[in-house]
């Protein structure tokens, strides 16, 4: 079943690769022979865009989880300079699903808090596949309070399947840790920018996303539950994940329409994994722009603005009783 669901993306990637190689072949011929083949190249580019326009919610989910997709550490290493990690929640341990620390963004001091999934099998195990335990959320909060104390803006990177469903996580108050982050983040008096770079999985993602600006990469997702989870509960069949993905409206385009997020950051055609450098550059540009806009906003206005932003989220009605 999982293989069938994956095949969807592999087919797409093959098609994209084929068009890409055709394009470069024509360009080569054009250069070698001195003939203008602009029209042919343009047709192929259009064909490619058409393919990408037709990407459905499930295909985007697969891209968001793609094994070669840039991870938080890739952004940290390339977007910032002098990244200096800060570790531990000061109670239990250092949760490696969260990377946090001090850094400079084009010379400006910022505090970074990120969910990291890990690339190799070893890293994945170390990072618990990007699923924090309670101490991860507590570490994040501690570091965010540090940022507040020294008046440094906070940038968070969101990439998690969700909170970790395990015995210790529950014993140590996973729900409590998430809830406290939501409450405290709503009051932090420095700018907060959250970027969803891959999977924004439910409460685990929200716990780092009570921000003044919420940005999403074009092919990332953000959802109350994974498509698989939703499919197995509401559709009674995990194989119906593609259906659930569409029903949940979890793509960046959907969430922008719903006014849940503030900006969609464009990705190279076919997804960030096909050209990591340009994805990283786009993220950097977006961060600088948003930081500029938030810079100098009065602290009280900032916190009140954040309150109003989340206060307005929700769609409901009044009945005549």
């Amino acid at each position: 079943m999982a293989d069938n669901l994956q095949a969807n993306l592999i087919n797409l990637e093959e098609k994209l690769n084929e068009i890409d190689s055709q394009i470069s072949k024509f360009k080569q011929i054009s250069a070698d022979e001195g003939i203008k083949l602009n029209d042919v190249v343009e047709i192929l580019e259009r064909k490619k865009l058409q393919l990408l326009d037709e990407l459905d919610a499930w295909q985007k989910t697969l891209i968001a989880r793609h094994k070669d997709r840039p991870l938080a550490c890739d952004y940290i290493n390339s977007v910032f300079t002098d990244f200096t990690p800060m570790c531990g929640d000061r109670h239990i341990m250092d949760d490696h699903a969260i990377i946090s620390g001090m850094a400079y963004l084009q010379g400006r001091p910022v505090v970074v808090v990120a969910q990291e999934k890990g690339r190799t099998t070893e890293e994945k195990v170390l990072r618990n596949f990007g699923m924090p335990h309670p101490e991860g959320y507590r570490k994040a909060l501690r570091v965010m309070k540090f940022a507040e104390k020294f008046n440094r803006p906070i940038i968070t990177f969101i990439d998690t399947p969700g909170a970790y469903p395990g015995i210790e996580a529950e014993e140590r108050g996973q729900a409590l840790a998430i809830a406290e982050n939501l409450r405290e983040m709503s009051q932090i008096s420095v700018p907060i920018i959250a970027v969803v770079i891959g999977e924004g999985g439910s409460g685990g993602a929200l716990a780092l996303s009570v921000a003044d600006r919420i940005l999403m990469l074009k092919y990332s997702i953000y959802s109350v539950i994974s498509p698989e989870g939703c499919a197995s509960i509401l559709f009674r069949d995990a194989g119906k994940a593609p259906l659930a993905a569409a029903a949940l409206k979890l793509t960046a385009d959907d969430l922008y329409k719903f006014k849940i997020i503030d900006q969609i950051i464009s990705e190279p055609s076919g997804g960030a994994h096909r050209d990591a450098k340009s994805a990283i550059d786009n993220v950097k540009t977006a961060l600088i722009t948003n930081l500029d806009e938030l810079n100098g906003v009065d602290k009280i206005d900032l916190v009140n603005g954040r309150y109003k932003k989340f206060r307005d989220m929700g769609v409901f009605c009044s009945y005549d009783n």
Partner: protein
Amino acid sequence: MGWFSKLLVPDREKSKVPHGLWEKCPGCLRVIYKKDLEKNLWVCAQCGYHFKISAKDRINSLADPGTFKELYSEIGSLDPLEFTDSEKYCERYKKAREKSKMNDACITGTAMIGKNKTALAVMDFYFMGGSMGSALGEKITLMTEYATENKLPLIIVSTSGGARMQEGIFSLMQMAKTSAALARHSKAGLIYISILVDPTTGGVTASYSMLGDIIIAEPNALICFAGPRVIEQTIRQKLPEGFQRSEFLLKHGIIDMVVPRAEMHDKLEFILDFTNSGQRTVEKNGG
């Protein structure tokens, strides 16, 4: 988050005894005269099993008689995602509304508890498993803001199967919205008492229900973020006895106290007196 479809079947329907004069206790399997159960606030006199009760019954057991004034009852859900699984969400919601005569899974208002005027929000598990959508989030937020503006203590009774998945991202955002409102209430120096009853799970647990200055649970309530079945599937191990129950959370330092239903009103009155006037009106043993 909604992993608990099994739990969505109310106790009273689960028992084999047909609706009528008698009720079977899921705790000790004794058959109990319904009138006796009602008199005992739906707690089994033999084994102490706490049956699920509606928000209305809960309010009657907590508020001083005749003092509850409902607010925001008009607020109900919409279907922004136009969500359909085996049934259209709007149809499912309509049925829940008709059956319950409520507009969503929570009743909000003010009430007296002894000398203390209190803002009160009480969830109802019978309304779509107490799942949290925009309407519920809005009502909790409105009631919290009302309490902040009017300098009132706040009590929220939580019971929930988790997020209302049919409302997608809007459901998730209610966690942030309600928590932010509670931050303001807390900053105003007001007390929030969170009461957790069986079951309290998912997004409701990971937001307002864990943010009380005092957190109280009814005995043996399931209280968790990820449900036991999901954890079992993930770690492929049997879970320890009593895992994620009230007493387990008490032992692990996550809640303040476990209080049986019959003692809840007086316990609330004691805490409200203590934090408001600092004068005892509820007699405690051992003075």
